[in-house]
């Protein structure tokens, strides 16, 4: 009897074998299409410059070459490239720390059911989901009022907080930290800060991992704030460096009539394979780590979807 029931349960939510096979092919092809461009770009970065010029981009290099990677670490732009990676890494690490700290502190206060200003602080944060100040107004405030233009803060502060992360964290605190624990700690004489540091934070580690992941991705992939606020070479993050290389190439291509100047300009920029190699190196940290963090990511998404 028990065995029979089990078989039935397996059957309930699954296609018959033929349909199952067809849909596996369809979904599998889509999933492959998500990896393919990245593999393509890796193989271009490993192709020699001469065979690129001769045959164009190929999925399988005719002539392998590591020159693109030696160029990154020893060519005429290597200092700029390494500096850009340095900026990105610093902004990602420090920014994620700032974001996670501010988010958990703020979210904790609005998760406490006995906090009388809870409603005020909740609405104060959630209004930002309804309306956006807009690019122009934000730009004017950040560059002319806060004077953050061409400082590292222009890359950190605009992404340092967000209502979505606050919601995720608040829901997480409500779910994992029961009021009774906090109450008993207070009776034992713990201050609010001690309760937060010693009791609440250790319980909330998975939640903090989730929001840190969101924040780190945001910082690593950010080019928008650099585009608006950064002109100084020493503060250019890697994503923006890729955009700048692109713009210079487009500029040179559009002014192709200028002869020798073009040759000089092209020589100063990374070659085809070297550009793709920068793309690969800037993508690799994400591609290699996200499968391990995916659990937290999906967890955060489903928590974020929970309503009031």
């Amino acid at each position: 009897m028990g065995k029979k029931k089990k078989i039935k349960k397996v059957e309930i939510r699954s296609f018959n074998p033929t349909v199952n096979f067809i849909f596996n092919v369809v979904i599998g092809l889509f999933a492959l299409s998500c990896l393919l461009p990245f593999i393509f770009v890796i193989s271009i970065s490993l192709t020699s410059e001469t065979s690129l010029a001769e045959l164009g981009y190929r999925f399988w290099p005719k002539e392998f070459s590591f020159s693109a990677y030696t160029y990154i670490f020893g060519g005429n732009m290597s200092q700029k490239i390494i500096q850009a990676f340095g900026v990105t890494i610093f902004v990602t690490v420090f920014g994620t720390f700032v974001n996670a700290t501010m988010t958990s502190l703020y979210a904790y206060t609005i998760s406490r059911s006995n906090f009388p200003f809870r409603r005020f602080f909740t609405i104060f944060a959630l209004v930002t989901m309804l309306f956006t100040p807009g690019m122009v107004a934000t730009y004017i405030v950040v560059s002319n009022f806060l004077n953050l233009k061409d400082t590292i803060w222009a890359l950190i502060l605009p992404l340092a907080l967000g209502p979505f992360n606050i919601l995720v964290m608040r829901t997480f605190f409500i779910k994992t930290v029961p009021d009774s624990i906090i109450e008993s700690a207070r009776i034992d004489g713990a201050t609010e800060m001690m309760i937060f540091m010693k009791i609440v934070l250790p319980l909330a580690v998975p939640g903090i991992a989730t929001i840190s992941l969101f924040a780190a991705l945001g910082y690593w992939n950010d080019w928008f704030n650099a585009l608006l606020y950064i002109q100084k070479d020493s503060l250019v993050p890697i994503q923006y460096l890729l955009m700048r290389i692109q713009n210079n190439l487009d500029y040179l291509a559009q002014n192709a009539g200028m002869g020798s100047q073009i040759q000089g300009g092209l020589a100063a920029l990374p070659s085809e394979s070297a550009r793709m190699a920068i793309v690969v190196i800037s993508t690799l940290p994400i591609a290699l780590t996200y499968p391990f963090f995916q659990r937290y990511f999906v967890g955060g998404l489903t928590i974020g979807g929970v309503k009031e």
Partner: protein
Amino acid sequence: MNKKKKKGFWHNVWTYKALILMALPGFVWFIFFFYIPVLANVVAFKNFKITPNGFLNSLFTSDWVGFDNFKFLFASNDAWLITRNTILYNIVFLALNLFFAIAFAIIMSELRNKRLVKVYHTMSLLPYFLSWVVIGYFVYAFLSPDKGIINQWIASSGGTPINWYTNPTWWPLIFVILNVWKSLGYNSIIYYASVMGIDPTYYEAAMIDGANKWQQIKHVTIPQIIPMMTVLLILNIGGIFRADFGMFYNIPRNSGALYQVTAVLDTYIYNGLTATGDLGMTAAAGLYQSAVGACLLLIANMFARKLDPNSALF
């Protein structure tokens, strides 16, 4: 009553000073990066000129012009083009994303090998984690006029290669494909979680009643995920006036020849901010975008609440 409440307020502030201090950094951030910028939208009603004496000085010394900036904006041919492009693209994105995300989620929930489903999820999430700058380079590897793989295929099958970055014909399709490709993994995971959460006894009951797979999906799965669909739809409708700046700016490589099909509200505002320097009119375009977006969100929410009070956002 009033007096008692007031005394209570300061008493509360003192009692909960530690919690208030904890919320303070976030509070200050919201003021500087949300509330002050929202107020700074008044430049849309001014002939705004930046003076060397700082933001407040330039704000107070520039003249009020009422709705002139908006009049100029809507008198230009661009206003219609960018509004149309933004809305049309977003409606198509919204519809296709909804359809594919739900279809993929339901299909994956019925696949037999759940370990394979996990692999599919991981693979299809990759594009979501990449920036549009990086994807711009990916696209170039396919569309490059002289070296791109697509023109190689066209040439080898005897056709004439297309100069993708100057020919607007295919771009609407390219944007649609890229948008769905980038977000499908993410969207389908959200729906997958919700589909897998449906009580299996519903399916048992449906099977006993003789429902086939399609009838089960139609009468059990879809009705069960409608609340979630409504919430996400409301959020997306609020964003229908907000174009994906990253995609429209990075993928076509700023090609002037593609302007008709790549100009959307956000690229227009960015160009206004950096190239034309007419801050007043650009701010007007931004305010137009935010205000209409907020109204759409409120209206969509109102409809959602009429249909089903449980699926409204607020």
